[in-house]
């Protein structure tokens, strides 16, 4: 039991730490690595839950998560980076130390705010919900505080992964069909954004703030 709880907690912690790393590191490649690791951790968590509850569907979801979130999406984004000249580092609106301190505060907020859910679900899964909530909040913050389009996508993915984490923990497993739907949605979104990004790059736009000049 304790080993299971420990392993489960470690996987959840890796998901949150990966979100922090997205804020922490400036190199876009490192951010992709963090996202990929987050996908792996999420898959590991689903596997653990599936194995613990003897739920084949959950194992299938784990495989799906692994393929889409750990391999496919980071792979697609890596090609975006390779195709975009001169965009190796993020461009923070809020400087990195301040972002990290804010991320810490968001984690604490999540810890307090998740009280009712923790009380409702309980057990080794329920008490990890704050970590999922923290991932969601950090993801939103990444979208607010980073300028590059790729960072925006990364933020969106963090939010999605955070929601997935909460969903796994709260319902002890999402039906395959729901997870399939949401994963494909996100994948679809990434593909569209990637195409859009390619067009923007072709038009010479690198920061989303530059889009502001469109309305003049």
């Amino acid at each position: 039991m304790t080993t299971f709880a420990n392993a489960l907690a470690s996987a959840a912690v890796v998901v949150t730490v990966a979100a922090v790393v997205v804020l922490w590191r400036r190199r876009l490649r490192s951010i992709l690595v963090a996202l990929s690791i987050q996908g792996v951790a999420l898959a590991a968590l689903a596997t653990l839950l599936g194995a613990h509850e003897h739920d084949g569907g959950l194992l299938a979801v784990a495989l799906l998560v692994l393929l889409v979130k750990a391999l496919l999406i980071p792979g697609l984004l890596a090609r975006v980076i390779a195709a975009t000249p001169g965009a190796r580092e993020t461009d923070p609106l809020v400087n990195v130390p301040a972002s990290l301190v804010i991320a810490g505060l968001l984690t604490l907020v999540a810890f307090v705010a998740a009280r009712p859910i923790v009380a409702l679900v309980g057990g080794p899964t329920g008490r990890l919900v704050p970590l999922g909530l923290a991932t969601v909040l950090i993801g939103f913050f990444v979208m607010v505080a980073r300028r590059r389009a790729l960072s925006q996508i990364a933020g969106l993915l963090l939010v999605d992964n955070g929601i997935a984490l909460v969903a796994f923990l709260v319902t002890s497993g999402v039906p395959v069909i729901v997870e399939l739907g949401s994963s494909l949605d996100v994948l679809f979104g990434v593909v569209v954004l990637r195409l859009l990004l390619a067009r923007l790059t072709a038009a010479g736009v690198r920061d989303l703030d530059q889009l502001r000049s469109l309305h003049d």
Partner: protein
Amino acid sequence: MIALALLVVLGGLATLAGLAPRPYRVQLVASLLVLVEILAAALSVHVLASDHALLGHESGLLPFSGVRVDLSPLGALFTLSTAVVALAATIHWLGYRRHAMSSASASSAFALFVTTLLLVPAAGDIVTFLVLWEVMALTSLVLVAHDHAQRDEARQAAWWYGAMTQGGAALITLGLVVLGAHAKNPGFSAIAASAHHLPGAARGAIFLALVAGFAAKAGLVPAHVWLPRAHAEAPAPASALLSGAMVNLGIYGIVLTRTLLGVGPAWWWLVAGFFGVISALYGSLYAATSTDLKRLLAYSTSDNMGLVVIGLSASGLFSAAHHPIASSLALVATLFLLTAHALYKSTLFLGAGSVQYATHERNLDQLGGLARTMPVTTVTVVIGGLAVAALPPLNGFSAEWLLVQSLVHGLTGADPVTTVATAIFVAALALTGGLTIVAFVKAIGVGFFGRARSEPAQHAREVPVSMRLAPAITAGACVIFGVAPGLALRAVERASAVVTANRSGLGASISGFHLGALRGAVDPLALALGAVVATVLVAGLRRGLGLKGGAKVRRFEPWGSGRIVTSARMQYTATSFAEPLQRVFDDVLAPQHDLDVSHAIESRYYVERVAYASANDDVVERRLYRPVLALATWWGMRARGIANGSVHRYLAYGFVVLVIAVVVVS
């Protein structure tokens, strides 16, 4: 009671003695004051030793209620630490009078200030408390304004201080009067017995009013703006008392609020803790970047009071979360920190006063090299500075260790809000600690070590005996209570038991603490002994080895990047020392830079003159108070048009008001 009456009489005599003719005035006042201080110390030691409050009631002395005395062990702890600080300040004054503060008004004000400082914790009802509080505020205002004729800064300091302290006093009066009216009795014990009948919202409002009023006295951000001005401008013995005794009474007020109102809900202490964290971080950050020695010390006071309020809030939170042991432990730590602060901060202010006496200089960028010319003062300041920085084996370390322990034991994880607050407290404590070390290494290293940066510092002479003795007393106490914190523990624990009604279970041997049922202990005496023995052994080893290379130490000119002769101007100044930190916290401090480069006419690539100015003024003052003051001024100017002196217009105003009143009433 007789001792207390004697104390009042002696204090009054000392105040009158301020009118004595000049050659003997200060000696006369000071010797009477020494008697007062010794008497107060003996009285409070008696209360602490017997663990019984000193009670008394004398009707007819003051209107409404008479005078009620209630010197509990809690109050006695405050009186005792004030007495020690005041003793040192009085002795320092004997020498300092040749520099400043020898006039009749200053002498009388000083005597009355000391007496009221000693008596405030003994007040047992609202009227007595408020009268003493006001006399304390007014006499300290006289001392802050002491240099007003010579220095514009002193006048400004007095304005700020007067405004803040009167605003605070108004809030305190309001809160206490409401409580007294509800209890139908001005006595503190009667109020404490009846306050829980008040509705929750009213209690909360009274708590906020009282804590805000007392926080203004304790110098918490954002009510701290008077502190760096007043502490810097007051003469040294007075600033030692302001920082070592008077701000403590602000904290006494917050503790008193808790005894009057009870612990209350958790949100009270979350609010208080928030301001504690802000004050601690803000104060330490400004201390680390200040270059004026006394301003630095004042900001550090603000930071320490922030830590104290963090401790109080932790105690309240743990109590609200039903964790009584951690709660009492936090309160013991808080009171220990408070007494430690009184000792080391008065050492530092007296030391700074000695420096000012010897060099007429407070700016660190103009000091340096005092370790050779003023050895005794330097040693006391080093002890005080290392104590503020919470380094073992000095008393600041024991206090901070206890505070961290209470937080560690209070973090049970049972209640997320308490857990989050505790984690933030620990982080704030840690960053504050680090910044304080920067501040005081800067103050000591730049101000006292290295080479003299100016003529006055070069030719500084050691101060008279009394001015060397005074900080040595408090510095000695810092060492004693640092090495053997157990000596003070029982007194502090009795004081805290007045509030929490249960003991922390903290045990002590002479040399250290152990946390009773909780797991944890520290032994500063053993650490100090070990380190001293090791130092002596290594020194012997170095001497033995050095014999081969020649026992004589060769002096050389330090490395100046190839220049043959180095000069004192090549040293790092206090400003440059703090520069990296200032850049890291650029967004918070928002310093104002002004770079003016004029180029040669012939070519843009040759610079003719570079002028650089940077000002690091208080950002709260600039962003919060200045706009408010500007608004008030604007409003005042507009109001002039309303009152232009025409009688008809005034009658018209009266008429309009009358009409409105009639309409409203009907």
